């Protein structure tokens, strides 16, 4: 039996659980990522304004600390705050996801060539118009790179949610480990990897739709 057939066989043995837990898994990922985007994109924009330059560096250190704390510790902390269940997992994943999105939003906006900003200002755009019409469209590719990194981390970390009663594919993985049932463990692991690929693909699709063709042409 080839490796591919084996993978399919493992998944088939737990098909019902895989589907059910994948949906739980995606729910945790989706909610925590959405919350992270809501916070991280404005934070990145705020940091990229020239008048906030010095505060931005301090803010970045705070986020770095958030990123450096082990995910398991984050989960435990979250659990002591909101108790067991999906909310604890969502909070922990939210913290873990904020940094890459913020950093890439910040760096992407700062990398917009200064002469574009000068042209925009000279033509009479307000700061808001410059941000929406020039800065964000031109930073979008870098921002998406951050989002994709964040989502990969998020999907890959989400199995830990099981440890705080948050459900998801971690249930198969950790139970499989505990029962010495490699089939069960691998079914969860393979499904997690599949989800990561699926999410990244969807994100790539969204990137293709939203990043201007002019920028893609310029990059190629």
């Amino acid at each position, binding site marked *: 039996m080839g490796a591919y057939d084996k993978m399919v066989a493992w998944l088939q043995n737990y098909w019902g659980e895989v589907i059910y837990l994948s949906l739980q898994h995606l729910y945790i990922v989706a909610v925590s990522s959405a919350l992270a985007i809501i916070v991280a994109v404005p934070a990145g924009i705020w940091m990229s304004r020239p008048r906030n330059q010095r505060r931005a560096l301090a803010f970045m250190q705070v986020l770095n600390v958030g990123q450096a704390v082990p995910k398991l510790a984050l989960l435990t902390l979250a659990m002591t705050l909101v108790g067991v269940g999906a909310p604890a997992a969502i909070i922990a994943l939210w913290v873990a996801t904020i940094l890459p999105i913020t950093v890439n939003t910040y760096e992407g906006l700062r990398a917009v*060539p200064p*002469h*574009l900003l*000068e*042209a*925009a*200002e*000279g*033509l*009479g*755009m*307000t700061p808001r*118009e410059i941000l929406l*019409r*020039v800065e964000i*469209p*031109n930073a979008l590719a870098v921002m998406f790179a951050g989002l994709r990194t964040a989502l990969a981390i998020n999907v890959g970390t989400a199995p830990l949610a099981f440890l705080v009663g948050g459900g998801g594919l971690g249930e198969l993985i950790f139970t499989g480990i505990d029962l010495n049932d490699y089939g069960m463990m691998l079914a969860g692991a393979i499904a997690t990897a599949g989800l990561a690929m699926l999410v990244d693909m969807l994100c790539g699709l969204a990137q293709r739709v939203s990043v*201007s*063709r*002019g*920028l893609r*042409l*310029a990059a190629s």
Partner: protein
Amino acid sequence: MIQIDNLSKKYGAITAVENVSFTVPEGKICVLLGPSGCGKTTTLKMINRLIPPTSGRVLIGGRDTAELDTVTLRRSIGYVIQQVGLFPNMTIEDNICVVPDLLGWDKAKSRKRAAELLEVVALDPAKFAKRFPCELSGGQQQRVGVARALAADPPVMLMDEPFGAIDPINREAIQDEFMRIQRQVRKTVLFVSHDIDEAVKMADYIALFNMGRIEQFGTPDDLLARPVSDFVANFMGNDRILRRLSLLRAADIVRADAPRPDGGPGSMAPGDVAVSPGDDLRQVLCLMLEQGRDRVACRDAQGAVVGFVHQRDILVRLGDNNATVA
């Protein structure tokens, strides 16, 4: 018309621009010329308040621009920069329509305007309107930059070394192109440059800056023939006499010659070299020196001889510093 009245810019103890005053009449091009760090770009940017002036006034059409908020002011002034600054995420058409869109023009009207302007800058709208900036050459991009500045039909255009990043051959072409456009649109243009040839070629007036002050303001001929200081004379170059010739056309000093024994009145002798009336005298004199002649024939587009240009006429014209040549 644009009046600059006692404009100054100070950064702490450093004075970048000091009491600059000059007036550019409607429809004329004024080149702000000078070495790096002389305050010419700072002066230009104080007009659309990208740099807020420390003191002084700017009047456009007699109206003090301090009465306008910066956004309204900038939308009413065309602005072209050296790096062009076309937005890579927008099509050529959308780039040209930036200001009309900000002003809330009807979409169909502004896109029609974009197509007209592409015609004006000699780019085929059918071919270019939907392209992106990265698909155009540097020269084509700057033509679009000029079209964008013209989009909302502003009375005044500010150009900050617009052709400085273009290679010499294409620069000549785009300068000629811009002069053709200017004859059509008649804007009041302030143009920053550090290139004397460009200034002499394009300017109706030159404001020569040195260390934050205007050293001399006048026509190109004023600066070339009657420099007010050693700085002006040095900056305009030792060959300024020759540069001055480029202000004159063959047509300006052509004259009919006396009948010759070997031909009818004013006809060409065998071996005579011919120029056209539009050639500038710098080219004509070069040709004379190269061919070792003291006169050349001047022929119009149909090939008929209009008359002759004589070397001694050129020398007489140059010797007279007080006569305005152009």
